[in-house]
């Protein structure tokens, strides 16, 4: 589904990613961990196509296509979804309106007819039911005045409605208390299918108790220094990130 090769990326002429290699297949959950400043969020933003990040070397192939040939909206239309670390407020636009616009943009790109507000409401209610949430903030402006936890939940609601092939959760656990974390993780697990894949970007192992990864990668100084199974996350939790560092230099 996703093949990243020797990815180098910089922001403001400063190189953040220094040669990332990663392969993600359908049905898999990958965790990307690493200390602050290691490039985790940069990797997530580059995948989504943020214009502030310049890719200087390497390639990403997503579903057989060169990702760099695709604009951010095309990536989304092709099933790539980034749950933002810092979701942005869209003032004056309600969640329901925004979600319908997003769903219809994707449908339009697939040659499907747009959903009218009533049809869409049915879809929305069904999704909410599937993840066990109520419709309390559908009529609130997108992320406007939301608490940190509400914003993160809202990202997962979008994930549920848009049903991406590849979801990237960028520090979705940050700012969540344990109950909210569990709620969000349960929703993500319910949305899991053999056809889709998830990349969980996180600093802490905590989230991975609830969203159990098939693979854990440790990003250090802009490249993946070590990969392993879910037990690697526990080891990191116990020992911190420092011990990875020398190996990265050797490798």
């Amino acid at each position, binding site marked *: 589904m996703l093949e990243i090769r020797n990815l180098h990326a910089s922001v403001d002429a400063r190189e953040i990613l220094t040669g990332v290699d990663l392969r993600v297949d359908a049905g898999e959950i990958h965790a990307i961990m690493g200390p602050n400043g290691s490039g985790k969020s940069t990797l997530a933003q580059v995948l989504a196509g943020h214009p502030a990040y310049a890719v200087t070397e390497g390639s990403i192939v997503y579903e057989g296509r060169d990702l760099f040939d695709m604009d951010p*909206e095309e990536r989304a239309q092709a099933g790539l979804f980034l749950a933002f670390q810092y979701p942005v407020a*869209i003032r004056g636009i309600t969640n329901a309106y*925004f979600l319908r*616009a997003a769903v219809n943009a994707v449908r339009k790109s697939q040659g499907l007819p747009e959903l009218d507000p009533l049809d869409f409401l049915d879809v929305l209610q069904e999704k909410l039911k599937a993840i066990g949430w109520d419709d309390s903030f559908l009529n609130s*402006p997108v992320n406007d005045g939301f608490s940190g936890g509400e914003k993160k939940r809202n990202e997962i609601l979008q994930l549920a409605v*848009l049903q991406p092939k590849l979801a990237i959760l960028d520090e979705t656990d940050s700012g969540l208390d344990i109950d909210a974390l569990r709620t969000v993780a349960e929703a993500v697990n319910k949305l899991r299918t053999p056809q889709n894949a998830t990349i969980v970007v996180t600093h802490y192992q905590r989230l991975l108790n609830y969203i159990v990864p098939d693979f854990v990668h440790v990003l250090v100084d802009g490249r993946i220094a070590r990969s392993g199974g879910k037990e690697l996350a526990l080891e990191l939790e116990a020992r911190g990130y420092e011990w990875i560092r020398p190996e990265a230099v050797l490798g």
Partner: protein
Amino acid sequence: MTELADGATADPHARYLAEYRDMTEPSVRRGPAWLARIRAAAIAQFAEAGFPTTRQEDWRFTSVAPLTGLPFSLTHRHLAPHIGREHLGLFMPPGPGAAHAVFVNGRFTPGLSSVSGLPGGVKLGSLAEAVRSDAGGTVEAHLGRHALMERNPFTALATACWEDGAFLLVPRGVELEAPVQLLFLAAPGEGPAVSYPRTLIVAERGARVVVVETYAGLADRAYLTNAVTEIVAEDGAQVTCCRIQRESELAYHVAATQSHEGRDAAIASYSIAVGAALARHDVGAVLGGAGAQLTLNGLSVLHGRQHVDHHTTIDHAAPHCESHELFNGIVGDHARAVFTGRIIVRPGAQRTDSKQTNNNLLLSEEARADSQPQLEIHADDVKCTHGATLGPLDQAALFYLQSRGIAPADARALMTYGFGAQIIGTVPVPELRRQLDRLFRATLDRGARHPRLVP
């Protein structure tokens, strides 16, 4: 005649004075003495003040030179415009049986109006007629007492020259559910026409009413509307007003709206300005009784070379009052939005709670917005906040929408819509919210479909 016209062009100020003399002899003398005195004082005020210039603080950002350069005259009005009810649908939502009063060139037009059958002794119709039959003295008590002619020469001119307009009286304790629509249509003739629609709305103690004022033109011409509206909410009254300014984009619109609230009264005002080449709207509100509340929200949506200036003055004259003011401007092409938000807290107006926000969205490099708060606080136990923003669409939000599959052009349209929806969404009456929303969407569509070719 030619001589007069030449002289007039040279001195616009004198031309209006001459027209006042022509029109008021002898009709003014036929009116009640109190009104004649007000008119005389008003024209004297205008004669002395003349038209404002940008050297005056209140007019720094708005030059009226384009307006004074044209020989606007009452004589240029279309005398017999053909207006059928079918025309009204453009400007009013089709509400079966809903009360509406239509004014053509400022004059009440009974044939296009539906003012009967209002409950509880509510009066709706011609202001000139109300002056004549002013049994309870309500008109005399309020007309010209709130919109002060000293504040603005245009208000003085309009106070001197008005012929007719709207009168709405909601008696004590009467609650009117359905919105009352007031529609002011300019029907210009061949030359540059002026009209002076005048409105007086009085909600007596404990009354409740929803009013919509719409200003529109029947022809794309350089006409001038100089409108004055006075709104009185007596103790415990609740007035919700919407104001729609959708004049021709070649027209000039100058207006003053002045409200006065008694104890525990509430006025909620929502205005949208999408028309006129040049518009200046002075909005004044006096919170004159303890516990009064005011919401003053506005939206301007401007394209081409439109210039719209909102000059608001909220006067906290009594303690324990609240005012919330939110004005948004969406400014495209070479257009310019001006906002002045003056807040006065009088001595003794303790526990005033006042919040003012002015946000401007600039859709082009050449678009311009000027925003200036003016706080004059003469009491110590008050909460007053103000804030203003100015800038293009938020790039972070644009990327966020793109990352959800929405193409940049659609994302920009969505965010622009959201910017205005922040104001329209605050309108508490669903049918009015829809009315404003339709106009707002149509205006955005027009701006997007026909980007103005401005040199």
